[in-house]
């Protein structure tokens, strides 16, 4: 038994970048990894998963430097030992033979994909030289940074130190941006991730386009299932019969793009029939009379004509909400950039939540509890005279600058306005799959003097790169600690290496720190080792690093509900200091102060609307090459209603090419004919149809939804790209 030990990196700080050494052995075998003979020493490393971005706790079992198994960490406050398919398949990423192995420098023309392997020293010298050159010739702002994931945080610091404010991640303008802004305008507070939906305590869950079950985040699914099994009712609004729809008490197959009409009609019933939470609204809300007057005309009959949901069903579901309030969880969704009016739809959902008295209430949306975190005294970041190029705060007045507008940076690169962008650093994302209008992205790349990709896998855009840097996977690296405040019990968790980085890959912190040295920006990284970095951040929270490293996460007591807080602390950080049913901020920017339905563009004859979503075995376009996950779902299928299939002359199981209104064609994809989708839609699981041959398992499997998104409706408030505005027709392959 003494052969089993846990290990962490304390006391071995200096070697962290290259792995970790053992702590004194503790008693008891906790893991019996597959392939373990029963005699070698097993090291257990408690760390944080990154097969998606929910940040579950995992235990990696390591024998002789090899990670044999990744399991859920039973002591982790978020997932309590549970882990989804992707998390269980973690070693498939670590040992993916197609991983990037060394730094690569372009040799051929850009786009040809010809590279030579170079040393890190050579690679970083090249990069530092280019960055200095661009700063001298065009100004530091002419470098744009596209980060994703925890590993990119250190690089983000470096980019600020270098002098560019131009950082933007797809998690805003291609994902949850409008949601954060819509809720922030209403409650004075963005939702954050994980979104704080009290599913387990809810009496009624309302999903608007959310496909929980196919979209799997372990703790959220657990709360969802717990709530349902405790008797919660479920309303699912989705043009597709999703897994959630199959569990619903009411499935409302809405005409796509008309959700705001449904939401307004629900408000009409709640207010008209006096079913809203009168006391809550009177205590906390601003603009109720204006809202009541505004929604008066939006009757269920009005909405029926728009949404194709019978008025009786709209009334019935509104009354169910009135009955269950305030324990109604109107799930705010996650990827919400659909039609370009998304901030207003998020506002409508937030206002509905407010009318039901559900914000800060058990079974509704709970409140975050802040955790104090330490930081280093860094030199001042250079101030940019030219400001941001992505339009955040200006063209897109409500965009959150910290997250940025990716498409704003692509627009700026193409138009050279407000100034030219000459360098891109893309970190941890497959931007040709994550950002719509990929042909524009490629056009923009062609205008650059410098294109750098930092990633674990050879994703599609690698072939356009001048320099490729191989990052270590989450199992091989330290990251800045995860601090999750939007949990009922907020927590701090740590990501720490379970094994040495394979090949020549390096952790993100090391890449940033080494490049900083070469740019004379070392002062922005005033720590020698990750352990030192961790210690500093944990200091104010009073968390012992050894304890954190041994168990992976430390949680704190939270104050998730308004009732947990003194009356004077039940405040809202809005202009009026109250929940804003009516938003003067929006009115001041010439936008509707209360949501209004706008008609979506309809598919032309012979076309159906392309909608898309997730499968539980895959995360974005990141996991299709994973042996286990590829085995579970090697390709996607296009869902078509029998009428749509018949009209196109295609049958179940046949291969088709999807062609959009602009003549863009997908790779061949199998047809799944099903009654479980409206006849005006086609559905694809996102992330497939990857082109690069370097991902041998993923290459050429299925169709890319993103590839078919040649159009977007940009949300004028946030810059979010509405992506459900593309129409396709299936053509026999």
């Amino acid at each position: 038994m003494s052969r089993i030990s846990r290990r962490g990196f304390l006391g071995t700080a200096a070697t962290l970048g290259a792995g970790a050494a053992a702590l004194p052995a503790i008693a008891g075998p906790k893991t019996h990894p597959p392939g373990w003979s029963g005699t070698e020493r097993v090291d257990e490393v408690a760390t944080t998963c990154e097969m998606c971005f929910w940040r579950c706790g995992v235990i990696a079992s390591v024998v002789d430097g090899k990670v044999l198994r990744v399991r859920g960490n039973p002591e982790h406050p978020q997932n309590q030992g549970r882990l989804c398919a992707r998390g269980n398949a973690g070693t498939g990423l670590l040992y993916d033979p197609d991983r990037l192995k060394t730094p690569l420098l372009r040799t051929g023309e850009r786009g040809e994909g010809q590279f030579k392997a170079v040393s890190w020293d050579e690679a970083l010298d090249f990069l530092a030289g280019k960055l200095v050159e661009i700063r001298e010739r065009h100004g530091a702002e002419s470098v744009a940074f596209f980060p994703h994931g925890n590993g990119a945080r250190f690089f983000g610091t470096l980019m600020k130190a270098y002098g560019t404010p131009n950082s933007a991640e797809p998690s805003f303008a291609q994902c949850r941006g409008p949601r954060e802004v819509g809720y922030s305008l209403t409650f004075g507070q963005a939702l954050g991730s994980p979104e704080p939906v009290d599913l387990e305590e809810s009496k009624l869950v309302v999903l608007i386009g959310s496909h929980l079950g196919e979209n799997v985040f372990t703790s959220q699914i657990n709360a969802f299932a717990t709530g349902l099994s405790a008797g919660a009712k479920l309303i699912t609004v989705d043009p597709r019969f999703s897994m959630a729809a199959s569990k619903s008490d009411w499935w409302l197959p809405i005409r796509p793009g008309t959700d705001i009409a449904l939401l307004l009609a629900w408000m009409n019933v709640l207010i008209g029939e006096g079913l809203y939470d009168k006391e809550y609204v009177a205590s906390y809300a601003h603009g109720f009379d204006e809202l009541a007057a505004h929604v008066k005309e939006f009757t269920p009959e009005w909405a029926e004509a728009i949404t194709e949901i019978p008025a009786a069903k709209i009334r019935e579901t509104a009354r169910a909400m009135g009955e269950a309030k305030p324990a109604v969880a109107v799930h705010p969704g996650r990827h919400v950039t659909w039609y370009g009016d998304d901030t207003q739809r998020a506002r409508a959902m937030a206002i509905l939540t407010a009318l039901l008295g559900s914000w800060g209430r058990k079974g509704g949306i709970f409140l975050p509890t802040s955790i104090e975190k330490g930081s280093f005294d860094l030199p001042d970041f250079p101030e940019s005279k030219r400001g941001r190029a992505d339009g955040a705060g200006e063209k897109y007045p409500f965009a959150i600058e910290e997250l940025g507008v990716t498409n704003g940076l692509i627009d700026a690169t193409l138009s050279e306005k407000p100034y030219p962008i000459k360098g891109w650093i893309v970190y941890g994302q497959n931007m040709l799959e994550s950002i719509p209008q990929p042909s524009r992205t490629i056009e923009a790349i062609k205008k650059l003097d410098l294109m750098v990709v930092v990633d674990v896998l050879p994703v599609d855009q690698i072939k356009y790169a001048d320099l490729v840097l191989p990052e270590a996977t989450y199992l091989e690296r330290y990251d800045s600690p995860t601090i999750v405040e939007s949990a009922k019990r907020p927590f701090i968790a740590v990501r720490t290496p379970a094994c040495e980085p394979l090949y020549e890959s390096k952790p993100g912190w090391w890449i940033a720190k080494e490049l900083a040295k070469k740019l004379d920006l070392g002062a922005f990284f005033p720590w020698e080792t990750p352990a030192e970095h961790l210690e500093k951040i944990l200091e104010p929270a009073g968390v012992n690093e050894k304890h954190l490293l041994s168990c992976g996460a430390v949680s704190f007591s939270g104050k998730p509900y308004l009732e947990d807080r003194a009356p004077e602390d039940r405040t809202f950080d809005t202009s009026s200091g109250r929940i804003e049913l009516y938003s003067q901020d929006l009115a001041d920017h010439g936008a509707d102060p209360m949501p209004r339905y706008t008609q979506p563009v309809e598919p032309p004859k012979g076309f159906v609307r392309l909608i898309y979503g997730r499968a539980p075995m895959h995360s974005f376009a990141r996991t299709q090459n994973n042996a286990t996950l590829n085995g579970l779902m090697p390709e996607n299928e296009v869902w078509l209603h029998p009428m749509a299939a018949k009209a196109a002359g295609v049958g179940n199981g046949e291969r088709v090419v999807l062609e959009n209104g602009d003549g863009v064609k997908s790779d061949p994809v199998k047809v799944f004919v099903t009654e479980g989708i409206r006849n005006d839609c086609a559905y694809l699981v996102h992330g497939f149809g990857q082109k690069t041959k370097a991902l041998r398992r993923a290459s050429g499997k299925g169709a890319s939804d993103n590839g078919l998104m040649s159009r977007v409706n940009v949300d004028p408030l946030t810059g979010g790209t509405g992506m459900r505005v593309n129409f396709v027709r299936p053509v026999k392959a």
Partner: protein
Amino acid sequence: MARYAMVTDLRKCVACHACTASCNAEWDVPASYARTHVKTTPLAGTFPNLSSSPYVAQCNHCDHPPCVPACPSGATYQDAGGVVRVDADVCIGCAFCVDACPYEARYVSPRTKKVDKCDFCSPRIARGEQPACVATCPAGAKHFGDLEDRDGEVHRIVFHEGARRVETTDVAVGPNVYYLGRPEHLDLVAKSFPPHAPRYPVAREAWKRLIKPLVLGVVGLSLVGQAVAFFNQLHKGEEDFDE
């Protein structure tokens, strides 16, 4: 004696495949193979009045497992806890049990050429742990335990909460895997994934898959024996020579 059983609560299950992925990692199951499969029933009804249910298939550890008598080598057996297991050292990979299983819960590993299947994570049970699929299930939809433990969760669910098994009047072999769900969903599961009657090999198949390898094995062994004798002789000869 224990009588182990598994319950999957299909009201909670979202068909996320975490059980399969966890099982694959725990037992090093080759990609594209599985000891436990996640499925979804075909849709019943027409738009918009539809119904469907997830379904998790695995070895049912039947009271009367048709795979046991089908096994010519004695590799497949039922242990004291009712768990149906395969002794890989004895298995000859003939796959008769694969055909005999009404639940399609067995496969021949392309790596070892032996039959592999769910054994309720016997080594984990022996250590007092839950099976890997139960421990990982994000939805908390899986329950494992001893049916004979009257205070246990599984006993309660099976005997007092209306858990059902997937069986037909024709194929009733006493499965020990149970399902909870809305009645219409359980009906749909039963209709969509009925167990098939055990298939036992016909003579020709038996020749191809069992007798032929056996004969070849015997021939091969005799050849090996001859070779060993020959080299022994040679070796001895050399020794003789050295002496």
